[in-house]
């Protein structure tokens, strides 16, 4: 029994790590922009496609493909950030929802147009399993968990020590005051957006070896997984997001293991709604941003 229990936890953590890397980008973007990015999963998709493309056409090794995927996505995100996201500052909620849904449609279907709509197989990475007693796990997943920890430590250092990070924190706490102290909100929004989408892309390529299938519409499912996490984590709260992602990963793992896989996708939103009833402002105070 104990082994099963431990294995379910491990499964949950390995899923949670993926969610965490995607969600933290989205939550940071929310922090500075006060808008939900319904296109966030599309950057995850873009990263995966970037990696898949360079591996399958010029046979780049996997680690290089990771870098290419992230860089390409960040470049695309820069353009979108410049022309769309910056204009969303201070926009009413429904406007930002429609705008980001629009971006999602454009990105998704442009990829379909360029690369063809059919699914592709991603064949790279470190998929051989390692075994701890009975419990097996792909090396890639261990890598993801390790990198997830690295990402969060890195973000923590970034927002605490770097000028950019401090600016991000300032914007997410009080936009009005930023103008007074001379922080350019637009620049902060743009750089946070590029960073956040870069993280989504990073997560995409990291999981591609274990998720195998690559296609234009793969981002939507990720967006919908991420939404409850960022709300539970306390919109804009980096540490809270990590905890919420892990909670959701583990909860999903137990539901899938004990009730049935078909209920898994409702877990996120059911947990979210229950939690909102219990603590309407999220598990973690939204004030403790970053």
């Amino acid at each position, binding site marked *: 029994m104990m082994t099963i229990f431990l294995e379910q936890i491990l499964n949950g953590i390995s899923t949670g790590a993926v969610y965490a890397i995607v969600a933290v980008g989205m939550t940071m973007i929310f922090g500075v922009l006060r808008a939900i990015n319904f296109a966030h999963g599309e950057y995850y998709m873009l990263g995966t496609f970037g990696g898949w493309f360079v591996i399958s056409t010029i046979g780049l090794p996997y680690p290089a493909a990771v870098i290419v995927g992230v860089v390409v996505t960040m470049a695309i995100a820069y353009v979108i950030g410049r022309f*769309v996201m910056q204009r969303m500052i201070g926009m009413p909620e429904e406007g930002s929802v429609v705008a980001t849904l629009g971006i999602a449609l454009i990105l*998704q279907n442009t990829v379909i147009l360029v690369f063809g709509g059919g699914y592709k197989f991603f064949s790279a990475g470190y998929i051989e399993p390692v075994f701890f007693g009975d419990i097996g796990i792909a090396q890639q997943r261990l890598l993801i968990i390790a990198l997830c920890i690295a990402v969060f430590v890195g973000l923590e250092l970034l927002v605490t020590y770097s000028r950019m990070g401090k600016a991000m924190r300032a914007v997410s706490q009080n936009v009005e005051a930023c103008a007074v102290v001379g922080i350019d909100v637009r620049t902060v929004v743009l750089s946070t957006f590029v960073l956040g989408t870069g993280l989504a892309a990073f997560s995409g390529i990291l999981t591609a070896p274990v998720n195998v299938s690559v296609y234009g519409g793969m981002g939507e499912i990720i967006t919908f997984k991420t939404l409850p996490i960022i709300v539970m984590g306390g919109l804009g709260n980096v540490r809270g997001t990590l905890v919420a992602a892990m909670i959701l990963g583990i909860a999903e793992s137990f539901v899938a293991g004990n009730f049935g896989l078909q209920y898994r996708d409702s877990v996120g939103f059911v947990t979210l*709604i229950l939690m909102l009833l219990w603590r*309407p402002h999220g598990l973690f105070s939204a004030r403790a941003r970053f």
Partner: protein
Amino acid sequence: MTDSSSIPADTRPQTRDLRTPVSILLFLLALCSPLFLGTYAVHALVIAMIFLLPAHGLNLLVGYTGMLSLAQAAFFGIGAYCAALMATHFDTSFPVNLLAAVVLAMAVAVPLGIPALQLRATSFVMCTLGFVIITQAIAKNWISVTRGDMGLSGLPKPTFSLGGLSWTASTAQQSYYVALGLAALATFVFWLIVRSPAGRNLIAIRENETLAESLGVPTWRYRLAAFVLAAGFAGAGGALYAHYISVASPLMFQTLYTTTMLIIVLGGGSGSISGVVIGSILFVALSEGLRIAPELRMIAYGACLLLLVFRFPQGFAPYLSKLWDRIGGQTRKEGSA
């Protein structure tokens, strides 16, 4: 054709008021369009009117009460399933199913709304999105009732029966009149709601909730009422949808349906009745018009959404009311509205 929140027009001498003849013309146009439009265009208009119903509900929430709910798609689905189940199990006629769908959607909205309306802003939006995801999961997994992913299919076209007489809207043209009747009725009901003192209170809540509260308006109860009424509109739309498309399946909880309703409201202009009506037609014209380029369709659609949000943040309602004023022979001073 005025915004309920607009200022009563000033009573300067008018040059030539053509509003009455134009209204009559529009009315006749709506009545006669199946006679000269092709089946495809008529079908497109039926779709526009189907989505107009939940969009009215969404407008009540976004445009009048000032809260963004994505749950309209859930109530739309509940309405569709309710009508579909009634039709398959009890063989009831369309008006009965319609009524049942409205009642059920509203009944479900009460227990969902009570906890959800404690939340604000993004949390509320996410909670309502959660309703859609959960309703979809129920539709998929409550197989004994919903038949899961198999869906309920082969639903009859809208039938009206009175005594021994019965009439079925089997062609697109006939469906058009059913949809037109229902859309007109819904629009009228919507107009009554927003014109009533309650509508004024809803606008007050949108403008400033604390102030409304301090003037004795029980804002929470009004927000719940708006949420429930909106669900009713969505339920009606769902019933019409089920009978027209003939299938109710979990696929109708996809994001696309939510996006559609949002676009109609924002595109038309939230807080404006005529705007949303026009918005539903514009949306269908856009969505169907883009079929001309199948590969680029959704890309262009996405681009149009961006254009809408950034170029026409107020939707098309301001242009409409300007046009309407000009038809009425008035020129309203810029900036005074």
